[in-house]
């Protein structure tokens, strides 16, 4: 039984962007995702000008957008709506998810489980290019007559059904992205189940791998809902059906000629059936990254690893049962609202279990305040704020005044921006030595951290104040037309200036990233003295990762083992019997 029955994966192409190596694909995902993140952020900075100074021409770059978007540099409401919809779409579907799943998942999962590559390398490459295709589709819609999608990132019909052609492109982009993430999640799950190194049982997997495993199932089973919904909406827009258009719909005084019988509520159900698990797709890998960084920098095992794993599985399961808490105001009935309110309260329990376990892990650790650790430490309270402010939104009574106000935006940006994006930054600083063999500059990293932490709070905290004052999130002028909003409107200026300063503080990061690739300080292979398997490979790992494949003897976070000379004991280090060490797990 020699080689004839094993799949041979040979990089067919010398071209970087056609390589089937999981590390190359992960890096491609990472850079593309970071570009989209920057684009989504730039869109937001434009919107913040309009919100802070409504009706005033955009300085310096106002003339770039043309007469039909911003005549005289003054943003039109339609253009503002396009920016709003595309900011959400780009950030969620093209920025954060591809980074946490595509980049971190692809790069790290095979390394952390001691596998030579993903289970299906060619599908992996295909999923990257489908993602690029979807991204180009979404971007090209800006140049359609009537502009990009402008019905919000949720694309609620009937508005989205009768919107301009950009919406069609949005739907096609979503179908591409659904296919891409389906292939990616099949790949990640199969890799974790099948390619674990010898001795690496499920309860010895690093927590990051567990998070990716559950995330894979969420993407696999939730995305088809939006895919099907997109097909239905495409039919509505192209074939004249009326899945989401009710009978007797009147648009600007004219009754619409539809066959009728459609249900706008159906779209919301299908959309949120994806989009709620999607929230956990955003946060679970981030928690995984933070867990890795925390365990390494506190130099002690994670507290309650098992309960964290069980909480993650439970969280993944429950995330399929909470979607309609986004729809309390749709009139779907109090009984259904009551059910989803109950499930929403239940799902907060596993999130709290994970967060508390991470917090308690700090207790008694000898903490090293490295740059990635700063981001991981900031993640904990910031995610805490995001999570706690979510509770009033999950209760029907308090959701009624808060729904669709700035409070909601503040809540989920505390989770996604101050939570996930911080974890992404921390992860980049933490695994950069693995990717390049060099480390990123610490001084620049600390400047980046401090600026990001201060100004992200500056952007998002005032949103709670605006939201509690009742200002709606979707207004083109930020609420200037309403009398009741006048006493809080000055916060818009504060938030906008914070956003622009936040952009300034991203410059050290960008400079640091590119400078360190070539000029960063060279470091040894296991720079952080970590225990998990990715640090057993050389930096950067060659095609095939491990020669020979490693074998695992213990749990992932064996730091400060009593009686052992070093303060870390790698998973793959073999210990003789009776060497004075008791084996655990």
């Amino acid at each position, binding site marked *: 039984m020699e080689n004839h029955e094993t799949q041979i994966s040979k990089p067919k192409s010398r071209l970087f962007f056609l390589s089937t190596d999981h590390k190359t694909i992960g890096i491609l995902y990472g850079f593309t995702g970071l570009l989209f993140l920057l684009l989504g952020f730039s869109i937001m900075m434009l919107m913040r000008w309009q919100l802070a100074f409504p009706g005033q021409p955009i300085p310096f770059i106002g003339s770039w957008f043309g007469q039909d978007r911003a005549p005289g540099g003054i943003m039109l409401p339609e253009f503002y709506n396009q920016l709003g919809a595309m900011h959400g779409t780009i950030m969620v579907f093209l920025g954060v998810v591809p980074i946490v799943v595509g980049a971190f998942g692809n790069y790290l999962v095979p390394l952390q489980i001691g596998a030579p590559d993903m289970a299906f390398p060619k599908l992996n490459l295909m999923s990257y290019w489908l993602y690029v295709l979807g991204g180009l589709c979404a971007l090209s819609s800006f140049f359609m007559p009537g502009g990009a999608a402008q019905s919000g990132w949720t694309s609620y019909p009937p508005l989205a059904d009768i919107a301009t052609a950009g919406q069609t492109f949005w739907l096609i982009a979503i179908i591409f992205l659904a296919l891409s993430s389906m292939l990616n999640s099949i790949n990640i799950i199969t890799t974790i189940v099948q390619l674990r190194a010898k001795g690496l049982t499920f309860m010895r997997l690093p927590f990051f791998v567990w998070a990716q495993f559950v995330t894979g199932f969420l993407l696999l089973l939730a995305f088809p809902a939006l895919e099907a919904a997109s097909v239905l909406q495409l039919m509505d827009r192209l074939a004249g059906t009326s899945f989401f258009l009710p009978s007797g719909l009147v648009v600007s005084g004219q009754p619409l000629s539809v066959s009728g019988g459609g249900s706008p509520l159906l779209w919301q159900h299908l959309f949120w059936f994806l989009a709620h698990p999607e929230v956990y797709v955003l946060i679970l890998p981030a928690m995984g990254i933070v867990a890795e960084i925390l365990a390494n920098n506190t130099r002690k095992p994670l507290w309650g690893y098992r309960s964290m794993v069980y909480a993650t599985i439970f969280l993944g399961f429950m995330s399929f049962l909470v979607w309609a808490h986004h729809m309390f105001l749709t009139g779907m009935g109090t009984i259904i609202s009551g059910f989803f309110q109950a499930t929403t309260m239940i799902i907060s329990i596993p999130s709290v279990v994970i967060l508390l376990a991470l917090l308690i892990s700090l207790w008694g650790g000898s903490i090293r305040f490295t740059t990635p650790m700063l981001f991981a430490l900031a993640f904990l309270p910031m995610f805490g704020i995001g999570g706690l402010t979510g509770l009033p939104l999950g209760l029907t009574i308090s959701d009624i005044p808060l729904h669709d106000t700035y409070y909601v935006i503040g809540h989920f940006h505390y989770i996604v921006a101050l939570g996930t994006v911080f974890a992404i930054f921390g992860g980049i600083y933490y695994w950069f030595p693995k990717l390049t063999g060099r480390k990123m500059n610490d001084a620049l990293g600390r400047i980046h951290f401090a600026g990001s932490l201060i100004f992200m709070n500056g952007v998002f905290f005032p949103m709670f104040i605006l939201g509690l004052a009742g200002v709606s999130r979707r207004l083109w002028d930020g609420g200037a037309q309403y009398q009741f909003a006048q006493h809080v409107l000055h916060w818009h200026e504060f938030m906008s200036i914070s956003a622009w300063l936040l952009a300034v503080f991203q410059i050290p990061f960008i400079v640091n990233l590119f400078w360190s690739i070539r000029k960063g300080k060279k470091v040894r292979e296991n720079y952080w003295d970590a225990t998990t398997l990715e640090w057993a490979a050389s930096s950067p790992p060659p*095609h095939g990762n491990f020669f020979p494949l490693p074998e695992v003897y213990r749990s992932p976070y064996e730091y400060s083992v009593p009686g052992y000379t070093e303060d870390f004991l790698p998973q793959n280090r073999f210990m003789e019997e009776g060497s004075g060490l008791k084996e655990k797990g």
Partner: protein
Amino acid sequence: MQINIPYATETRPDTGLHNAKLGIWLFLASEVMLFGVLFSSYVLLRVGAESWPRGADILDVPLGAINTIILIASSITMVRSWTSLLKNDFKNFRLLLSTTELLGVIFLVVKCAEYRLKFEHGLYPSGSTFLAIYFTMTGLHALHLLGGIVVNAYHLVSGKRQWNLNPEKFTHRIEAAGLYWHFVDLIWIILFPLLYLT
């Protein structure tokens, strides 16, 4: 430099699977969700509708019935092409897989004829929600079948080479293709009574 992916063909002892089998089942799970969502949408739309036509009054039941029989037959030939590979009978495999392909194409031709008949009578997706969901679901099903036909055509064309290179791996591939083919047929077995008979 070349690397070997472990368990691409051989079974991993502790999970009892090879990679492709887990992969195809995960893919089918995703597909179940896709069609499951469409079926749920059908139920929701039907329950919410003021009136819903009887499928048999609008659609051509005998044509649909013929298509059902064709698909059941194609599943049988598909599974037998796999079992003949297990018996090392490549010739028989080729014959049976070609038959499967032929039956799949006939299904699509009948489906097209059915669509044409509807269009000739002025029945378009925009006509009513029933027609809309009929065209969407059968259209999506036909697209899936087309995908299966393309995969099997690839296995027919390159079958000899793959069989000579690595018979065990090729058998696994045919099994995966067969699982997908069965899934697509199973969807039809549910679609047919749902749309044509109720």
